[in-house]
């Protein structure tokens, strides 16, 4: 019987600790336990036997830590481990062998340097070989990072067709090391289609109880609970754990009484611990969990439930009607987009819509960049908004969590293209009620399409709780009954299908003046009909006001706390400054911006830059060089200067921007430190240079390409560590070979003038200010 069938009827018992027992048998500290599959197979097999004899259904092969990323002999070790496990399992008919897939020991991008694909690919190989060696299931365990967990599940599914069980490490605060709570993990894992999931390691059974309770409350699948035998201490050179088999079994009784739990033991547990646990819990009834019908999406930290409490989806990252965003997309200025995301989050949205659909750019690549970079700076769940199939599957693959996908519609082609992606990577999906015949003009018609879409989704195994219908708000300026039809459709869909609904609220007022007034009223009307989420502009006071008021009135806001909080205005709170120069010198960005705007009424942009901003920056630059002020003040002044530049650039006629003075800037390959480089960038920009920032960990080839593409002859390279400075040398060599008149400035903590000379750099910049001075001199002397 397959293990997934067995767990429908009865509780499954995993085995206990392997590492502790190997240590007792002589494994040295720091020695790789997987090696013993080759050097001491009898010991490993005997340990497996003892757990099966104790009554466990499943033994985990001694494969924890085996990974192609860590060892060339991974396949040899894996086969040996599976041999030991299969040998023992054969003696106990009805037992199962799990392939134990542990963390790679590396952190995934963007915090670390391991790519998602590399991690997933390693797991794909492991799962495929494990299946070939006769594993009955894949047990992905001890994962303390949400993203690595996803990579492992995706990889394992690509490599084999075995059942997949997943177990994470939660710490004492009830979260994973990188911040995910049980709700986030539950959302993502169920969406990815695993067969069971839960918690293991780090804590004893009693400390695990709060997380186990949270998981059993929300899970539609069995919950795995594999605690440590308490906390370790060292006695006479041996590591001992402080919970005895009897105590452990007692604690596990409480856990067994929570429905649908599968039990096992982790570090410090022995066959005796498992034997007593099985005896103590054997007669406690087990029921396969009921399916829960919550609609959720998640990020790498938390989940957002879409249901009775309306959800706000921030719509600002969308190029339609936004020239600045279009420009940012064309020039690859991701910072602008990230800022829009962060600012919307500060206004209180729950989810961020991400739409980068611009015909002249590489949408799939841009979508992937935006999704991964946004997730590095905000922990809000994202709505992947695209009609480009490749962009959708890229974004869904690299998304960290369970995304909201916008959208699918009633056209067969759309459903055929979107649903497989949703099935593979998980997600909740917005379903637009339109099809080949267009948008129905009746509520009944739109309901019909919603119904058809949910039925088609079910063919893929996508449950209706993950379908959110959008009955489309058509503008009343050309469809007088537009509001009525949409509102009725929301009501019908909620009543008859019982699924969530969404609307792009502001569409209702297209073509009319003072759109905010109509949008806000329509918003409340729709919420009253049961609208679950709205794609809206959080900077609209009217819309946010309507949202907070509705919640307070509908008893969704106890003691009107949120409503009251939304009423307090933020004070500007900064000391006044005389003029623009003063604001720049004192680093007052907000005032600098206002004063620049004011000055534009009477002065030309170029005059403002040359007579007000640059002299002020120059002065503070000199004070920095004289050690009268330090880096923080210099940076704040640079920021104030940049803020005023932003305003001024908008006023300059096209083409007058000083394109001549450019710099290509990068942190070299293998190096992920970028703060110093960012400081150089800010300072260079505030002094009027055009900086092409390639980011960090940049291969030499990419620097060369940027130089050749832009025609820029000045390059700045940064490196922090001895292990990466050779990449700097390679980059310089490549540049000098291909672009003979290029000039390279280098900087970074590891560099000295001597080393810079040795590797062929043209200038060693001990700090950001000297980079600016050198660059100014370079362009003054050069034939631009």
């Amino acid at each position, binding site marked *: 019987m397959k293990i997934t069938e067995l767990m429908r009827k009865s509780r499954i018992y995993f085995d206990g600790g392997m590492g502790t027992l190997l*240590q007792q048998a002589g494994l040295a500290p720091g020695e790789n336990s997987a090696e013993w599959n080759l050097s001491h197979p009898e010991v490993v097999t005997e340990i497996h036997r003892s757990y099966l004899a104790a009554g466990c259904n499943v033994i985990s092969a001694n494969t924890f830590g085996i990974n192609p990323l860590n060892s060339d002999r991974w396949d040899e070790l894996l086969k040996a481990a599976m041999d030991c496990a299969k040998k023992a399992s054969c003696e106990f008919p009805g037992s199962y062998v799990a392939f134990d897939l542990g963390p790679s020991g590396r952190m995934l991008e963007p915090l670390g*340097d391991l790519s998602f694909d590399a991690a997933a690919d390693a797991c794909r190989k492991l799962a495929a070989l494990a299946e070939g060696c006769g594993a009955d299931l894949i047990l992905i365990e001890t994962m303390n990072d949400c993203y690595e967990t996803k990579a492992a599940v995706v990889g394992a599914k690509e490599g084999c067709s075995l059942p997949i069980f997943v177990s994470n490490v939660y710490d004492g605060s009830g979260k994973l090391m990188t911040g995910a709570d049980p709700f986030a993990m539950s959302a993502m894992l169920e969406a990815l289609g695993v067969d069971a999931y839960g918690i293991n390691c780090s804590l004893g059974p009693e400390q695990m109880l709060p997380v186990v309770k949270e998981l059993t409350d929300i899970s539609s699948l069995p919950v795995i609970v594999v605690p440590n035998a308490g906390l370790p201490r060292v006695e006479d050179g041996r590591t001992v754990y402080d919970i005895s088999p009897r105590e452990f079994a007692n604690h596990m009784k409480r856990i067994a009484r929570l429905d649908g739990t599968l039990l096992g033991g982790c570090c410090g547990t022995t066959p005796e611990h498992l034997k007593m646990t099985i005896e103590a819990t054997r007669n406690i009834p087990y029921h396969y969990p009921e399916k829960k019908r919550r609609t959720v999406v998640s990020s790498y930290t938390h989940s957002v439930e879409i249901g009775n409490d309306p959800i706000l989806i921030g719509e600002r990252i969308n190029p339609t009607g936004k020239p600045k965003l279009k420009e940012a997309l064309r020039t690859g200025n991701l910072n602008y987009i990230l800022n829009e995301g962060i600012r919307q989050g500060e206004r209180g949205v729950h989810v961020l819509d991400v739409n980068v659909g611009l015909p002249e750019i590489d949408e799939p690549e841009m979508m992937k960049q935006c999704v991964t970079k946004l997730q590095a700076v905000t922990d809000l769940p994202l709505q992947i908004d695209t009609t480009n199939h490749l962009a959708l599957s890229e974004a869904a693959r690299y998304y960290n969590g369970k995304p909201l996908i916008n959208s699918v519609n009633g056209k067969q082609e759309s459903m055929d293209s979107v649903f497989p992606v949703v099935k593979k990577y998980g997600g909740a999906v917005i379903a637009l009620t339109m099809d080949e015949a267009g948008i129905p003009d009746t509520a009944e018609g739109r309901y019909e399409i919603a119904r058809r879409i949910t039925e088609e989704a079910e063919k893929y195994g996508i449950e209706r709780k993950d379908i959110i219908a959008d009955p489309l708000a058509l503008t009343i300026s050309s469809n007088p009954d537009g509001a009525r039809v949409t509102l009725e459709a929301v009501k019908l869909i909620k009543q008859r299908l019982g699924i969530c609904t969404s609307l792009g609220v502001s569409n209702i007022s297209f073509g009319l003046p003072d759109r905010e007034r109509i949008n806000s009223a329509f918003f409340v009307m729709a919420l009253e009909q049961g609208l679950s989420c709205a794609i809206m502009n959080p900077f609209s006071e009217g819309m946010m006001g309507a949202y907070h008021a509705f919640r307070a009135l509908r008893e969704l806001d106890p003691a009107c706390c949120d409503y009251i909080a939304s009423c307090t205005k933020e004070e500007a709170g900064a000391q006044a400054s005389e003029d623009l120069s003063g604001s720049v010198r004192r680093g007052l960005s907000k005032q600098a911006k206002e004063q620049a705007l004011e000055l534009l009424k009477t002065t030309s942009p170029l005059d403002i830059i040359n007579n007000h901003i640059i002299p002020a920056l120059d002065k503070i630059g000199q004070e920095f060089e004289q050690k009268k002020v330090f880096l923080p003040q210099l940076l704040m002044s640079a920021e104030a200067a940049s803020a005023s530049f932003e305003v001024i650039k908008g006023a300059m006629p096209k083409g007058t921007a000083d394109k001549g003075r450019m710099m290509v800037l990068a942190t070299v390959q293998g190096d992920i430190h970028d703060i110093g480089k960012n400081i150089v960038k*800010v300072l260079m920009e505030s002094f009027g240079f055009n900086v092409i920032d390639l980011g960090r960990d940049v291969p030499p080839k990419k620097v060369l390409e940027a130089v050749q593409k832009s025609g820029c002859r000045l390059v700045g390279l940064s490196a922090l560590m001895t292990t990466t400075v050779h990449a700097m040398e390679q980059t310089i060599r490549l540049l000098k070979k291909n672009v003979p008149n290029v000039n390279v400035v280098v900087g970074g903590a590891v560099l000295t003038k001597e080393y810079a000379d040795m590797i062929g750099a043209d200038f060693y910049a001990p700090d950001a200010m000297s980079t600016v001075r050198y660059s100014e001199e370079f362009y003054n002397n050069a034939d631009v």
Partner: protein
Amino acid sequence: MNGVLDRGTGCFSDVTVPEREFSIRLGGKPGPETAEYVNQLKSVAVCRYCYVKLPVSFSSSYSFNIGPLFVQSKALGKNLSGCNEAYIFAATIGSEADRLIARLGVSSPARQFITDAAASSLAEGLCDRVNALLVQKSCAECRPRFSPGFGDFPLDYQPKLLRLTDATKQIGVTLTNTLFLTPSKSVTAIIGVKTT
């Protein structure tokens, strides 16, 4: 016997940013506006550590064993000379600090710079606390802590130090291909102990 004399893991919730470290990194005394940024950092930092205590034996002044780890280093050899035991510890202020620093880079490089300086200083402050804890535990003479990258003790030892302390599993510290610790505000160090 597996040679491990002691092992432990824990966290501190009240680590402060050492003023001297912070000033050096900022290039001057921290002004009043930095307090807000420091508080923001502390609200997301999670200060954790783990350690292992192993026997030390010398074959020469610069070749020695710390448990099963064989080291060749004049500088570390000098630091540990006369010691018969050593603690190896790993400490980190967590990955949320890295995310905060990345986020600030988008909106305000000045704030990012200040927060980054505070974060590095906080990691040093954490090491000071761990150091003090281990000295107290040892009830013996301890040497100043010594990390990979000092003198002729290269970063190449980082993987082994992480393995011995089980830092990846205990506190989530990993290593990149180019031997950076991640989360970036993490430290590994050796403290020699002389009990004889």
